[in-house]
């Protein structure tokens, strides 16, 4: 695809925990300077994959290179050049924000000034607050600040905004965008479609430890051949053969008593749907439309929803 060697690459990655295959033959290439998202529901194998790439978990099979190096032979060098933020890891509560940053800074031979990191992540006001007293959003920003302490070339973020309020999420997105703007590489996992669409140059949809689709968010949505989703419910309910007759609808799914139709053109499909319902004597209970998102891509690929927790 490119002549530049990939920032992160893995081939035929496999990892089993007892009877559960968490990662099942996964290939991946992340280019330098791009933000790459591993997208999928909880339990899809995202965290296992990113931890293998971070050198924290060893795969049962497969090969990993990061910045052209192997974990086995260049662990220390790689650790100096990477920044990692883990899911669910908690920083020592009794230390203050600045003490925590200075501690992490001390681990790296070269790195960023902790005071600057505070400013970058809008934590100046919390400089001398104990970590235990921070809000969820502040803790998450501090975790990212710690990952940035060594001025890394690649930033690994596992579910960076899970459980955060919208404002904290926006703040983190801005910070990640700034890091990306400095032509650094980001690999993140998320089950928020909006996050992937906002931040990622490319995403890989992961399900059952495999990549089932890969590309830019726009490419993946375009592959649906249906930029719009029509969501409705009626009284009495209508059936699939009835809907098959409606022109311009490429796909039909039913969930919780509602129908979801994927349509190429709303101008064509909506009037056709309304007149068909009218003719059948079905009363419309609700109707809404939205542009297709990665969420719809995921549903189209797996028939399941990406759930938030």
């Amino acid at each position, binding site marked *: 695809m490119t002549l530049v060697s990939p920032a992160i690459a893995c081939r035929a990655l496999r990892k089993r925990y007892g009877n559960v295959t968490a990662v099942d033959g996964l290939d991946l290439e992340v280019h330098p300077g791009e933000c790459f998202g591993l997208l999928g529901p909880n339990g899809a194998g995202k965290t296992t994959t990113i931890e293998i790439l*971070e*050198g*924290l978990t060893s795969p049962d099979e497969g090969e990993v290179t990061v910045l052209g190096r192997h974990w086995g032979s260049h662990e*220390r060098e790689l*650790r*100096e050049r*990477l920044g*990692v933020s*883990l899911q*669910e*890891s*908690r*920083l*020592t509560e*009794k*230390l203050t924000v600045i*003490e925590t940053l*200075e*501690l*992490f*800074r*001390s*681990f*790296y*031979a*070269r*790195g*960023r*000034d*902790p005071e*600057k990191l505070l400013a970058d992540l809008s934590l100046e006001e919390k400089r001398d607050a*104990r970590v235990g007293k921070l809000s969820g959003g502040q803790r998450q920003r501090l*975790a990212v600040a*710690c990952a940035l*302490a*060594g*001025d890394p070339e690649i930033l690994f973020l596992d579910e960076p905004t899970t459980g955060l309020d919208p404002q904290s999420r926006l703040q983190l997105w801005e910070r990640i965008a700034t890091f990306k703007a400095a032509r650094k590489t980001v690999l993140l996992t998320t089950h928020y479609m909006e996050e992937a669409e906002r931040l990622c140059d490319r995403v890989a949809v992961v399900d059952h430890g495999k990549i089932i689709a890969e590309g830019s968010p726009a490419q993946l949505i375009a592959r649906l051949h249906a930029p719009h989703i029509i969501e409705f419910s009626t009284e009495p309910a209508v059936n699939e053969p009835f809907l098959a007759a409606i022109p311009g609808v490429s796909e039909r799914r039913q969930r919780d008593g509602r129908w979801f139709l994927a349509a190429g053109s709303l101008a064509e499909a909506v009037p056709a749907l309304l007149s068909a319902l009218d003719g059948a004597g079905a009363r419309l209970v609700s109707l809404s439309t939205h542009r297709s998102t990665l969420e719809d891509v995921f549903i189209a690929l797996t028939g399941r929803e990406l759930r938030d927790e």
Partner: protein
Amino acid sequence: MSERRHPLVALTVARILEFVREPEALFWVFAFPIIMACVLGFAFRDRPADPVSVGVVAGPSAGTISTALERTGIVRPRTYSTVEEGLEGLRTGKITLLVEDADGLVYHFDPTRPDARLARLEVDAGIQRARGRRDPAVPRDALVHEKGSRYIDFLLPGILGLNLMGTGIWGIGFSIVNARLKKTLKLMVATPMRKSDYLLAQILSRFVFLVAEVVLILAFGVAVFKVPIRGSMGLLALTAILGAIGFAGIGLLVVARARTLEAASGLMNLVMVPMWLLSGVFFSSERFPKAAQPLIQALPLTAVNNALRAVMLEGRGLTAIAGALLIITAWGAASFATALRIFRWQ
């Protein structure tokens, strides 16, 4: 680019800050040993020995026997109306010996109890003298109240050793298991931090508390109970330092793989409780059978207690305690090396 501290220094400072901001931990390290020394010190302070309670069965001679017993100054008699009641008192520990004078004198007592055997001697002497025995030789008692030979003098070095062990193993154990549970450790091994730096910092941070802890306990003992320190302070400090390092190393090993606080505290107790009993904290470890001595003497707490007592109470020099210091150092070094190899970081 910015300047940085050496990671070992940064980790040690972080650990110290974490500790001093934990009020409960401070209490256990500093207040607990002092409270314990106070309670035990007062319980065993210098005072006349407790009188021995002895029962006398009612009868014609009961009055004269009781008077004779009272005259010894050591025995406190109480009267029972029947033998059965007296035996009941003996069984429930209200008295240590029962005197019956129906068909000649009978002493009821349990010969496996040392205090009962002593009571028999005192009671018999009192009654025999009251009935006219003349002792051929009358000795004079010269009582010893010398500092350095009282129970508190024996106890204080033991409490110091106990505290070195307790804070080394508890202090290190819980903080590590906590960091493992919260995945702080995992986050740290994702950085270029050296694993040995992390473990060494745990040990180094102990020094700060060590100084406060040892000085406080010693000062308390000297000021309140006039416990003597006969040997060199330098040697005492060396023993405390090596002891602290040794127990910190053992603490690291104990929790090297524990995944939960419950598992960790179980393991810590498994390691510490036998030493509480065997290593001569409250009574001399020499009391255990000879066959068990090689094992008991090889325990780290026995070594530390022996060295502390040799320096404090006997004023011994380095050569006398070199063996004990070697034992605790070997424990610490071997534990640290093993812990580093088998440590679970995530």
